[in-house]
């Protein structure tokens, strides 16, 4: 018994050590964000000392160079509204094409699944052109672009879930004189809640971190966080390492906060999404 606890404790200590090693790249970036920009590349593993410590200087210059808070606002706006639109509209579409069994529904379902395996580069150029012609190359329009390009996976996930709901519930409501629209919002959508969370989380992770699509569509006028970070790199290899470190830290903080608050949903959601996808 005694020996068991000793072994358990040593495994626990081993876990902690492994976690520290595993997360050390992030800690090293945090540490370097407080060092002068010329003391970073050469000796990233050295702790700041009295000559290399610069306080918040990197944060000040980084915020100035990237306009980080604007980028944060832009990322937040695009992510929140795109995800809301996707979660809501694709649920309706998925329910409809699962319940109405026609050849058309089948064809739609197949097209949505097909769109999941198409890499972005395939439609990168033409989609940017279409977005330009339709005047969607602005922060509002990009919400519609995300709906169009992201609905495949979401419809697929919802459809799988709808198939598992017994249709009798819906039939009972209809016999009591409900109409499909009311029924969907009052009865079906609440049942879909678990898969809606999965859909929301997968889309948040994609859209928040997406670089190329917003860069091509709105990048010349508006910057999201990934665009702002990449913008810091500037021309041929000239990076202000100090500002870069500080902005990397600021880019990671919201992700960590989001993760700490929704940790359980995120891990469960991602597993559910992966298993069904």
């Amino acid at each position, binding site marked *: 018994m005694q020996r068991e606890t000793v072994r358990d404790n040593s495994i*626990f200590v081993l*876990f902690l050590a492994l*976690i520290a090693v*595993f997360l050390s*790249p992030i800690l*090293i*970036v945090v540490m370097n964000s407080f060092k002068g920009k010329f003391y*970073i*590349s*050469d*000796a*990233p*593993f050295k702790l700041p000392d009295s000559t290399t410590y610069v306080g918040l200087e990197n944060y000040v210059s980084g915020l100035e160079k990237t306009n980080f808070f604007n980028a944060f606002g832009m990322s937040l706006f695009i992510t929140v509204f795109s995800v809301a639109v996707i979660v809501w*509209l*694709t649920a*309706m*579409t998925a*329910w*409809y094409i699962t*319940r*109405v069994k026609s050849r058309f529904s089948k064809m*739609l379902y197949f*097209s949505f699944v097909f769109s999941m*395996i*198409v*890499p*972005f*580069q*395939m*439609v*990168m*150029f*033409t989609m940017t*052109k*279409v977005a330009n012609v339709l005047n969607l190359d602005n922060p509002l329009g990009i919400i*519609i*672009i995300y*709906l*169009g390009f992201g609905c495949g996976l979401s419809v697929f996930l919802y459809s799988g879930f709808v198939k598992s709901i017994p249709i009798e519930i819906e039939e009972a409501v*209809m016999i009591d004189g409900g109409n*499909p*629209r009311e029924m969907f919002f009052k009865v079906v959508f609440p049942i879909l809640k678990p898969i809606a969370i999965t859909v929301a989380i997968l889309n948040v992770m994609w859209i928040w*971190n*997406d*670089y190329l699509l917003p860069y091509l569509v709105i990048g010349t006028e508006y910057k999201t966080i*990934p665009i702002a*970070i*990449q913008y810091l790199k500037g021309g041929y290899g000239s990076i202000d*390492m100090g500002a870069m*470190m500080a902005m990397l830290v600021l*880019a*990671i903080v919201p*992700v960590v906060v989001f*993760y700490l608050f929704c940790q359980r949903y*995120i*891990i469960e959601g*991602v*597993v559910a999404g*992966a*298993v069904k996808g």
Partner: protein
Amino acid sequence: MEKSIKRYFILFTFPTLLAFTALFIVPFVMGIYLSFTEFTTVNDATWVGLSNYSKAFANQDFQNALWFTGKFTVVSMITVNILAFLLALLLTRGKRGTNLFRTALFMPNLIGGIVLGYIWQLILNGILYRYEVTLTYDAKYGFWGLVVLMSWQLIGYMMVIYIAGIQSIPKDLFEVAKIEGADRWAIVRHITIPMIMPAITICLFLTMTNSLKLFDQNLALTAGAPAKETTMLALDIYNTFYGTPGWEGVGQAKAVVFFVLVALIAMIQLSATRRREVEQ
């Protein structure tokens, strides 16, 4: 009931369908068409047949990118899945601290590719500095740098899927095996691995598609340097479109080849592993 729902076709499907058609179907079909033409702004396309494809395949950068991406995909599929599976075995033995460990290991998966690329650029250049080289000194550093980055990002994700698989195996199977005198390795080989074949399928598939389509991490870590030697397919296609004037058609042809490749491999792998699942 179907009939009354059918009347609501427009309300339920129209917004999604409109966006899907305009921003996926139309660009996709246009993309296929344009790969057979020469164009700069879409409107000025002239039919050139297969010449874009022959230019694409004869292109040194494209050949490099194909080879580099293929190697990278194979290596990262192996490193990510072996490490993730071993960690999952360790974490399903009900020890204290398991949850904390799982939470920490999953975290990198939430960080965006651009940010990940710059984090690892700092770390790897810091290590290589001691040997007086940098990440972009030789393609092999960029290659292994990307493998390390990819493993760091995906291990936690795959591990969580393996854990879910292992936890769904009925406990009595393990007990019977223990009573029969099977050692730990025999249990892993003859019970755990066959029972989690679905999880293995999913994880291999996810690592493969993620590796094939890698773009942000590639752009941030090395941007293809030195001399485009660490450019992967997605980045090469991007460079062809936006960095080589007059080559838009070739870029689109490369994109079609890329799409066909991803789709083919995805289908072969899914059907192959499905068949094995049935045999079990």
